[in-house]
């Protein structure tokens, strides 16, 4: 009997192409898994950043992984009605971000914590004495900060 947990496990091999240490599952992008009686799988993904060009690649990879595992038919849909946010990244995902040299986003409430946008922990020395240098970075999900203790410039996965 195939379960949702089994599918989730299979999907752990699909990584964010721009952050190869974090899986889609840990990113919180796999929203829903349906297992109809015909032996197929339907996966619903939620997009992270609206303009993120990596989303279509990830959807394609999800489809390929499940086909390869013998499921048919496989359908993957994007649900744009659900708002993804950075609190959905799992503990495992946060570790993966750090492993990739990215400061994980602080837990964040957009209604009350605007100051959180400017706060980051240095992934090199762990200091919180950091300044936001640019709210935009090499990809939509990253901001550039600088550490006032070790002086290193670093990227943060943005809290959204």
């Amino acid at each position, binding site marked *: 009997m195939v379960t949702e947990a089994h599918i989730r496990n299979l999907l752990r091999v699909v990584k964010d192409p721009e952050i190869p240490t974090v899986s889609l599952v840990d990113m919180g992008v796999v929203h829903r898994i349906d297992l109809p009686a015909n032996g197929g799988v339907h996966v619903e993904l939620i997009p992270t950043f*609206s303009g993120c060009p990596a989303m279509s690649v990830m959807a394609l990879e999800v489809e390929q992984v499940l086909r390869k595992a013998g499921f048919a038919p496989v359908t993957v849909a994007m649900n*744009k*009605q659900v708002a993804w*946010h950075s609190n959905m990244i799992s503990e495992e995902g946060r570790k993966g971000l750090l492993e990739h040299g990215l400061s994980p986003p602080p837990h964040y409430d957009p209604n009350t914590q605007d100051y959180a946008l*400017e706060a980051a922990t240095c992934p090199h020395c762990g200091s919180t004495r950091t300044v936001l240098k640019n709210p935009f970075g090499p990809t*939509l999900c990253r901001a*550039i900060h600088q550490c006032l203790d070790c002086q290193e410039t670093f990227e943060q996965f943005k809290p*959204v």
Partner: protein
Amino acid sequence: MQEALKSLLLSLADDLLVIGHRNSEWTGMGPVLEEDIAFASMAQDKIGHALAFYELLHSLGEPEPDILAFTRQAADFRSCQLVEYPIGEYDFSLVRHFLFDYAYTTRLEALKSGSYAPLAALSERFLRELKYHTLHARTWVAQLGNATEEARLRMQSALNEALPMAYGIFEETPHTAGLVAEGIQPHEQELRDRWLAGISALIAGTPLKLPQPTAGDIRPYLGGRQGRHSEHLQPLLTEMTEVFAIDPAAAW
């Protein structure tokens, strides 16, 4: 009701596509590398938002997003005139971004608690991203507004030029009353007042002065929401649709 909703979605999508295209023109041209990256990133977000609004229109029976974006002429666009003006000097682009993004935020805040659920859901999502755009805008407005005399003068002149254009964001259309009656959004004037209160408070932290409508020095640039545009929109559309016009089925 469907018509009023579609007109709102079209004006939202068109505003975002056009300003996204304009902001993308700073790619490789920014005054410093960080600003190059910032304008390119904001353009990418805006075009992502435009796509979502065109998709919503498509779900209501309108053509596919690419058809909506790439096959219409200027007179079919419902974007406000503010977004179509050339990028000009960096001061103008920065002030336009400041005025537009606070107006867009004000509108999404209202739509988020409005009665049309799919639009409320998108608004909630986009507002999270938009916080970075407004953070970027207010940081630079404060920095340059409080910097040298030249910076202050240039920012003031850009503000004087762009504010009347930005009033056009809140142009009423024959559909506005219907949208208000359905609880989808408040009156445009109500939105404009909220926006003005927000930007006034931020401008107050600088020596810059917001031109006052009471002094009669603001003539809003109207007409965009009804398809009347400046001479700048059609050349932008012609350039943006060049590849599509050559091969509508091209894939890359």
